[in-house]
């Protein structure tokens, strides 16, 4: 029986791994209820998972298309305001809010991409920077929808019109979406679109010669990245239940970028690891240290330095440490054998 399960696990990698990861994550509320971990840990982990979803989309853009978006926070924020407006103000169902709140930012993303993706890749970073400035202005000034600086509230989601989730239920919903996004990313990357993106990144000449429409694929990967940002925003809104303009500043976009660079470009597990480092370490470790913990901006410096160090010295991200550790272990082992023999 046990070996049967083991075989199933092995033959269905990586899906079985994703599933196992999801199950482990789902145990967290139980541990909280049992009093084994702190109540606040659930909030920290939930936000890490939400940022993981956002970062997975951005990893497709950065890792596979070699493009940078600085509008992540803006599009995420847009997702929060839209879903809050649709569910709280208009009283429409969560599912509808989810669809609209992902579709509208995606549309704006596509328009931004249409303008900026035609010539040089780095134009996108600048264009999204400008768009996110505009969005921030909108969050502040459109106060009849956004409530301006005082922010806007929403509730835990009600699924299918009757299933009212609580804090734990919403957390499980976030876990569900994360695993779904992981599966989707894995599939996409290993299909012809994923190969086309890799080809574009490696050689635009080869891509064009093989019939890959570079402009269209850049747009596509940007649209996906924006959708996942907005999805993250929707989930954030219904878990944190509060949004305000200053939550969606450039720093958040940079932190999400840090997640990918530090964790590992083109790696799903690397992205998750990166999210735990970027959003977990400051919350769980830095703040508890004496002196450093009380300094504002310590987390920014930590992440900024880490970005630069990783790019310079460990360009494939910290996720590859496991291979290096394995390799060194094996070397150590071999040396031992050599000595014995």
């Amino acid at each position, binding site marked *: 029986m046990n070996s049967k399960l083991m075989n199933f696990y092995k033959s269905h990698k990586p899906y079985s791994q994703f599933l196992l990861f999801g199950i482990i994550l789902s145990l967290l509320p139980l541990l909280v209820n049992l009093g084994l971990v702190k109540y606040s840990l659930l909030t920290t982990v939930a936000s890490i998972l939400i940022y993981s979803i956002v970062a997975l989309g951005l990893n497709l853009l950065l890792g596979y298309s070699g493009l940078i978006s600085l509008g992540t926070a803006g599009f995420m924020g847009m997702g929060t305001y839209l879903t809050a407006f649709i569910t709280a103000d208009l009283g429409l169902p969560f599912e509808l809010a989810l669809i609209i709140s992902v579709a509208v930012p995606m549309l704006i993303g596509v328009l931004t991409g249409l303008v900026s993706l035609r010539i040089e890749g780095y134009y996108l970073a600048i264009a999204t920077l400008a768009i996110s400035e505009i969005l921030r202005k909108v969050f502040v000034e459109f106060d009849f929808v956004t409530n301006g600086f005082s922010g806007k509230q929403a509730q835990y989601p009600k699924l299918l019109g009757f299933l009212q989730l609580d804090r734990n239920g919403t957390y499980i919903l976030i876990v569900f979406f994360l695993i779904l996004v992981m599966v*989707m990313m894995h599939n996409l990357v290993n*299909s*012809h*679109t994923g190969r*086309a993106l890799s080809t574009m990144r*490696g050689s635009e000449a080869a891509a064009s*010669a*093989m*019939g890959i429409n570079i402009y269209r694929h850049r747009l596509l990967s940007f649209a996906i990245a924006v959708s996942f940002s907005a999805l993250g925003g929707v989930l954030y809104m219904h878990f944190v239940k509060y949004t305000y303009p200053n939550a969606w500043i450039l720093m958040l976009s940079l932190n999400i970028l840090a997640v990918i660079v530090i964790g590992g470009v083109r790696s799903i597990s690397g992205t998750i690891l990166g999210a735990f480092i970027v959003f977990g370490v400051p919350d769980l470790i830095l703040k508890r240290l004496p002196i450093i913990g009380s300094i504002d901006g310590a987390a920014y410096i930590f992440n900024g330095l880490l970005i630069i160090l990783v790019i310079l010295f460990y360009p494939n991200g910290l996720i590859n440490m496991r291979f290096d550790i394995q390799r060194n272990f094996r070397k150590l082992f071999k040396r031992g054998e050599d000595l014995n023999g």
Partner: protein
Amino acid sequence: MDKMDNKVLKVENLSIAFGGLKAVDNLSFDIDEGEIFGLIGPNGAGKTTVFNCITQFYKPDEGDIYFRTNTGEVENLVGKKTHEIIGKGLVRTFQNIELIRELTVVENIMVGAHVEFKASLFNQFFRLKKTRQEESRIRKRAEEILDHMGLLSIKDMLVAGQPYGVLKKIELARALMLDPKLIILDEPAAGLNDSETLSLVNIIKEIKMERNCSILLIEHDMKFVNGLCDRICAINFGKLLAIGTPEEIQGNEQVQIAYLGKEDD
């Protein structure tokens, strides 16, 4: 347009200039169906520029490029998008190998059939039936081509780190995925040793025989060109010097001057 009977490609009065310098100057030639056609010339003669014009990487200033497509119709390629060309049945390789290091050998070759994939984004996200069918069908074809070239054993290895001769073959394999009417090879033998060159000659001959396609190639190695091509076009400074059989070209005085320089009497 003149008659295109038995012709697969007809280049007419092609010209392109870069900042006043004419890289290709009023060049015309045509390629028969099933022919191996060589384009030769000294360094800087404009050979690669001709290729780039045909495949629409550069937009020519003047001239027309007629091509008999997969469907048998004749189309002018000038003004088409670069990524539309392969769909017409014309595919190229590059002088500096353009393969993707992060992909495996077989994945690199599957990219050659990119335009054949029709599964939607949604279908790919959830790896539904259509995606799975297309993947396995095209993977199988890629493996057949690899097998033919004797590369099946390395199909799941990364391209990064493969020897140069193997990379050249992988690029050629990628060009075969869509059964093109015309394959354009940019210096296929450059950097290969004698035995690798010999094996490449055989592969190119086989491709022509089995796939019933035409091949246009640029090459410096005269021995390679003479042994392989049915006809050769020699150019210098973007201008036509001569077109003819390898023997005719070898005997052509102007070609000798262009290659060896003029002897002072």
